[in-house]
């Protein structure tokens, strides 16, 4: 009796969802933060449902299996995949073998499917998902003795068959212990489908390597990625392009808010992103300006000030990251359709995480204003003219080598490193973006 009452209460609460961002999904999953029926959580331990958005080939498969198996029971997986994409091959992760539900295409009502799945789970109508991988210790003891309890050596020997954390010089000239771990690809703040191999000294990043996980021929789920890919080959109305741009920037800002723990702001930005994707009457640029004022009232801008500034000249030659560092570069200036609309560039100064956040909000607002002007005159972008994607000029003008970013983050605190990566909104993997549409 009491237990069933508890079940009913739990079923009525917002559904804790862990979003695993796969290839081709972009930042689409982050828009669910706008839905009051859902609660996007940062760890699978808090979730009952894992939403696998996109496709999970290559190195993403085992990672999805691990995250899936880390959910407590009862649990379920909902797969949000591109409509009409090819069926995944033999390298499909085990977690996707028996999903509780499959949603095809970005237009499906994923939130309702997640809520229904959660309720069925708690009512006992849906069986909990079994482990996708083996129930084995990830690092079994290999020490000496009957229980692997022994080892050898005192000063940095091999106790329990595994080497001790050795010391290395840190940024302050001290010799501190180092720990290495592979983080991601489903960590909030990290670029999509990217594993960060980090060597920590305490909370300080001593060395960082960003490894994009290639997912060959992943179909595109995210309408923003699809729209900019389409614009490379076919004439596309400027209003649609700009709404897609605003939608992307607002999602990227929402992601940063989530990382900073500002849930209400994240929900608001995600809601605006949804509105921008909804159509002509979707969202008022003044609402984006209001979000900017609300952001200035929070402490986030102050705490991100001076974080993630690249030493010397900014390595970015185009895109919002370059404009946040004061570089006046925008491919839209070379497009006659934009010139006719009276396009004026938005530029910040500083080139830090704060400037990039402010730049994205300003560009989102600017894009919405452009969209409404472009809709009035029916402006169209032609594929022969230069195209500015949210990441920089197509095909790869705004790209920067991941090694450059990783090298700049050595010596930073982990929180600052994540803030930097989140504010950069890197799209390193050609499979995440449609072929060649983004760096």
């Amino acid at each position, binding site marked *: 009796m009491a237990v069933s009452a508890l079940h009913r209460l739990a079923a009525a609460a917002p559904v804790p969802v862990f979003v695993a961002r796969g290839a081709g999904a972009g930042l689409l999953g982050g828009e669910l933060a706008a839905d009051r029926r859902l609660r996007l959580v940062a760890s699978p331990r808090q979730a009952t449902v894992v939403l696998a958005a996109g496709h999970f080939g290559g190195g993403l498969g085992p990672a999805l299996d691990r995250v899936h198996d880390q959910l407590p029971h009862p649990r379920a997986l909902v797969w949000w995949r591109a409509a009409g994409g090819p069926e995944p091959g033999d390298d499909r992760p085990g977690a996707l073998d028996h999903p509780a539900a499959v949603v095809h295409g970005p237009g499906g009502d994923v939130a309702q499917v997640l809520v229904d799945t959660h309720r069925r789970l708690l009512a006992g109508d849906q069986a909990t998902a079994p482990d996708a991988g083996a129930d084995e210790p990830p690092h079994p003891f290999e020490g000496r003795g009957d229980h692997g309890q022994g080892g050898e050596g005192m000063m940095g020997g091999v*106790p329990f068959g595994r080497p001790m954390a050795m010391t290395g010089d840190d940024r302050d000239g001290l010799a501190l212990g180092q720990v290495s771990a*592979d983080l991601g690809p489903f960590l909030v703040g990290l670029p999509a489908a990217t594993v960060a191999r980090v060597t920590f000294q305490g909370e300080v990043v001593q060395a960082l390597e960003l490894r994009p996980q290639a997912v060959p021929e992943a179909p595109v789920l995210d309408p923003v990625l699809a729209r900019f890919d389409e614009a490379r080959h076919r004439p596309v109305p400027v209003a649609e392009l700009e709404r897609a741009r605003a939608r992307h920037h607002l999602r990227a800002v929402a992601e940063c808010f989530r990382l900073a723990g500002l849930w209400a702001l994240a929900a608001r930005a995600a809601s605006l992103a949804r509105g921008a994707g909804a159509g002509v009457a979707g969202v008022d640029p003044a609402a984006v300006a209001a979000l900017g004022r609300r952001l200035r009232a929070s402490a986030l801008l102050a705490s991100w000030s001076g974080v993630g500034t690249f030493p010397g000249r900014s390595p970015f030659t185009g895109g919002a990251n370059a404009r946040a560092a004061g570089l006046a570069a925008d491919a839209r200036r070379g497009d006659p359709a934009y010139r006719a609309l009276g396009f004026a560039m938005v530029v910040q100064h500083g080139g830090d995480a704060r400037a990039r956040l402010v730049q994205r909000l300003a560009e989102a607002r600017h894009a919405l204003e452009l969209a409404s002007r472009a809709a009035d005159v029916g402006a169209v972008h032609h594929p022969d003219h230069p195209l500015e994607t949210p990441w920089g000029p197509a095909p790869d003008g705004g790209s920067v080598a991941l090694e450059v970013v990783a090298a700049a983050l050595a010596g930073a605190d982990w929180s600052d490193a994540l803030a930097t990566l989140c504010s950069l909104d890197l799209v390193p993997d050609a499979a995440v973006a449609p072929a060649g549409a983004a760096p």
Partner: protein
Amino acid sequence: MLTTLASAAVVTAAAGLAVAAVRLLADRGDPASTWPQRAPFLGGGWSETHAWNQYHPRYYPMTLVFIAFEMEMMFMYPWAVVFVRQGAKALAEMGMFLALLSIGIVYAWREGAFRWQ
């Protein structure tokens, strides 16, 4: 007689409880959580180090050696005073004490406490 019987009953009951508890708990074959659930969440990544990597107390063997030698010295000074009065008896007692401590030293030796790596 009554005391002996009561003691025997208490010991039997305690042993029975212990055996029953072990049996009952051991038969619950379903563990509370699986290995992946017990591993740290790294966003889908995997750590390459074991959980004790940072926290293994390397000073344990050194502590063992320290205690062995320190206890030896602590008792030798008062013993030297008593030895004058007691003679051979005190010598025998100190011999037994040192023999016990030596077992600890031999154990520390076997564990590699004297090896500097």
